[in-house]
């Protein structure tokens, strides 16, 4: 059972995940400590505060001198996102693209930074056709192929090879 990070005694029944200063953190607390810290589920803004409690020292980090950016559509600042953990509008993904990309990539354990597309799921109707998805798929298969060869899984490697050449033709 996970133990409460604050009192270190009771079972942690409240589990929070949040992103703050580009770092994803998890906090596990018992109910008593959570309510003592004035944590309410309504405001996500409380989470960074709680995280702040878990690690009090605020040393100047590279992020601290990071230049602030404003989304021209909704007026949300990068610093707002850092403190609230929530974005203002869909355009923020464009306004803060390099930083958000880094952040999202860091959540993916099996991810190789710089890959063409982060998304390999469903596409809404009418979305522009996207060649980068095809490229990502090839990219991933090539990585699997290298691994298969290293592990001497030759049957798997042959299968991957033929799939890659099939995709490249398309």
């Amino acid at each position, binding site marked *: 059972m996970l133990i409460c990070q604050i009192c270190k005694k009771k079972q942690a029944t409240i589990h929070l995940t949040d992103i703050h200063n580009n770092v994803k953190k998890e906090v596990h607390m018992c109910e008593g400590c959570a309510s003592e810290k004035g944590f309410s589920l309504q405001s996500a803004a409380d989470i960074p505060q709680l995280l702040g409690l878990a690690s009090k020292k605020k040393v100047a980090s590279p992020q601290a001198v990071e230049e602030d950016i404003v989304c021209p559509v909704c007026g949300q600042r990068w610093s707002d996102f850092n403190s609230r953990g929530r974005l203002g509008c869909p355009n923020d993904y464009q306004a803060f693209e390099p930083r*958000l990309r880094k952040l999202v990539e860091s959540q993916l354990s099996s991810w190789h930074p710089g890959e063409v597309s982060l*998304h390999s799921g469903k596409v809404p*109707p009418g979305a522009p056709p996207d060649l980068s998805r095809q490229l990502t798929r090839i990219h991933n298969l090539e990585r699997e192929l290298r691994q298969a060869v290293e592990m001497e899984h030759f049957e798997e490697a042959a299968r991957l090879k033929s799939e890659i050449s099939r995709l490249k033709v398309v």
Partner: protein
Amino acid sequence: MDISLPFDPAAAWLAGGGPDAAIAVTSRVRLARNLANHNFPTHPDQSDRSSVLSDVRNAFQSLPDGDGYTWCEIDRQSNLERHLLLESHLISRELADGTGPRALAFNPAKSISVMVNEEDHLRMQALCSGLRLKDAFASVDQLDNAIASRLAFAYSPLFGYLTSCPTNVGTGLRASVMLHLPALVMTSHIEKVFRAIYEMHMAVRGFYGEGTEAMGDFYQISNQITCGRSENDILADMEASIKAIISYENRAREELLERERPRLEDVIWRSWGILEYARQITSEEAMRHLSNLRLGVVTKILDSLTLESIQRLLLLCQPAHLQQIEGHNLESDERDIARATFLRGSLSLTR
């Protein structure tokens, strides 16, 4: 299409059943979607909320009549009504206790529900009993297609579906399975399981979702990573991990039955005794004992109850449902008395 309470708790998932129903209580798949060209509901300026609400309402009204969605404006419901919806797993605590224009749409079987203006403009979820993530995804996927042909969703080829919190970006898919793991708790293996779950990039959430408490050995397991992979890959991975946990719980149950049957029977019958004779019982204590009865039913130590009846009792002894049965508001200590009376009555009927 507006909701008329008293609220009827009959939902398809309550009937139980489905693969691995002895351990997997419910499977849920939720998709987070936002409308293009509108601020997220979490933006400090809330002026977009009303137009989002009416756009979504129009989209639902234009669905084929047979879909029969009920539309319920949450900010017009009483506190009791909002909590009935929360306890029925139709809305989140965040939507129940939030502020501003927000709504819920649900189908007649209450197997699909859509929250409007929670953290994202749309949170569409399908809920079914047992381990049936693919079925749940199929029904929410179908609704997603229907809504996507009526409203433009915020999407980018790079990030996928854009969400208010980047932890949901990509597929916007959160799959959760509510597992009943009493034997792993009794045999003190649960901590190991939790650690494995975190290592497999899944999270354990409480009974009513994120940030809520786990109760009565019921744990909600969900995926952490929503992008970089397809919906089907995420679901297949989840299902494989959940199946591993289920077989672990099954083994713990078999071990208890073989080696510690008297202890197991004692735990279950004591819980029966408390529920049949208690005069005051908190929701937490009731859930703990009902959880033991559920274990009694699936191990066939108890034969006078069914999984469905336990699931129903678990729901009806929650604060809002209890007040709904009693027909008026109850203070916390009054609720404990009413709950004990209700449970006593229900259990004595089955004998």
